[in-house]
């Protein structure tokens, strides 16, 4: 059952990823990216990262991508002009890419130490309790610095995007 779920969500992620790169209109790319994030949230759940899966849905898919969609709608970005692809790239590109992926997959299999398959529920350290414990004890300094970072980002975005006062 875990394998079936992995294959389904991995297929959704890869198809949405390819759609992101291939689609001409930015808003189709944005929605494909939302699809990738949703599929990845499901994969995080399989790996025992329930807090991260929820954070992915709330922060990434629910806020950051909405920001992207807003900007695309406001700027009224139209379809892109067709890019010129040289015939060498068009016909040799895909096979080389697949070969490259095959080599990477083989090397990953070789390098990684033998470990048990990924079973849903085998890793219990991803609950909000454990994450909160780590975040507020071991990683307290990065946590506080991140809040300063967000404040800087808010100030920067407001200053950059405001109307010019003539």
């Amino acid at each position, binding site marked *: 059952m875990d394998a079936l779920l992995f294959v389904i969500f991995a297929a959704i992620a890869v198809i949405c990823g390819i759609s992101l790169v291939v689609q001409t209109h930015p808003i189709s790319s944005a929605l494909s990216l939302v699809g990738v994030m949703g599929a990845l949230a499901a994969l995080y759940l399989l790996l025992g990262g329930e807090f991260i899966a929820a954070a992915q849905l709330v922060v990434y898919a*629910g806020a950051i991508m909405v920001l992207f969609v807003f900007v695309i709608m406001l700027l009224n970005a139209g379809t892109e002009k067709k890019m010129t692809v040289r015939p060498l790239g068009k016909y040799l590109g895909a096979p080389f890419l697949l070969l490259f992926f095959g080599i990477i997959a083989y090397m990953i299999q070789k390098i990684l130490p033998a470990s048990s398959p990924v079973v849903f529920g085998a890793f219990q350290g991803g609950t909000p309790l454990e994450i909160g414990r780590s975040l507020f004890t071991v990683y307290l300094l990065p946590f506080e610095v991140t809040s300063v970072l967000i404040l800087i980002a808010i100030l920067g975005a407001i200053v950059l995007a405001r109307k010019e006062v003539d």
Partner: protein
Amino acid sequence: MNFYLLSLIKTAIVVGIFMHVLAYLQWIERKVIAHVQLRVGPRRVGPHGLLQPLADVIKLITKEDILPSHVNKVFYFLAPFIAVTFALIAISVIPFGPIITVGGVRTAMQLTDLNIGVLFIFGISGLGVYGVALAGWASNNKYALMGGLRSSAQMISYELPMALALAAPLLILNTLSLREIANGQAGYYLGFIPRWSIFQMPFPQIFSFILFLIAGFAETNRVPFDLPEAENELVAGFHVEYASMKFASFFMAEYANMVTVSCIATLLFLGGWHPIFPEKYGSGLVPVAIFAATAVLCFFHAVNPARPFDRITLPVFGVLFLGLAGIFLVPPVQFILLPLFWFSAKVLIILFVFIWVRATLPRFRYDQLMRFAWTFMFPVALVNLFITALLVALFP
């Protein structure tokens, strides 16, 4: 019993009841607003207009489903689908009652209990913004685009005070699972004050409750925050280009969001399915008393009715209410019906507040709305969270 078969049966029951609740919520809204405005509301289709939702559904299904030629077809079809899907998914983690044993099968009155239930609801309501934004954009219409952008900006702005208002009782309850949140509010102080979040020591969460309700009004685009979608503003906003069934999808999504917000408020602040005073003082007889009183009222008004057909319909309703009162006295089903009654009563009270506010208040202008979120709600929610955290740390 097989896990999948049990889940399928529970899903069928929950979806069936939920769809009927959505349809009759519209009837309740029309009747309540009508009576507030000193008129009667729907009264022709069935006794007291009770078949009006059926008539509306038939009308909407048989209306011509126009596909304007200038819209972006893929997103035009996708937007109501997204809105409705995410609005209805949220019902799958809401618990309606305790763990019960029916006919040898031990199951919870809930479709699934996630231990990140509250975060899941946030994620789903965040994703529901896409339905509105895409609807506004796909319609290829200035008014729809403005309405869609304003509505989604409003929904995102009010997610922040809503999350902060929800974080305060979570500090006291210490869990994110909705079933454990409801169970953490069982018990009574001094023997008769219920241990609900709004009464809970060290800091009664009344301010969080009010903040959450206000943010809930804004999240679901209800009055007084319904400028982006009101009929006489911006030519009805983001759903101006939508015809019959797709328009109905948006309204189903809005009512489903309303029900979800009410259920979350009930679970987090009003103690879920726990009664208001202990069982030993007779809280099992409250539903019996309410339904019996309603039956007596029906019979009383049936004696000299305002309208001639009421001579027949009111006694029928009286008998039905007496039957309902009788069911609550039967011990074998009491353990299912009593928690369900208390949960439904609380949710219906909050829904009545939603409808009451719609009938009473005028709507905010858009800049007033956004200013209210960022300059009032957000600081107040932060201060509330700070005080709660301080008191929880000082008096564990």
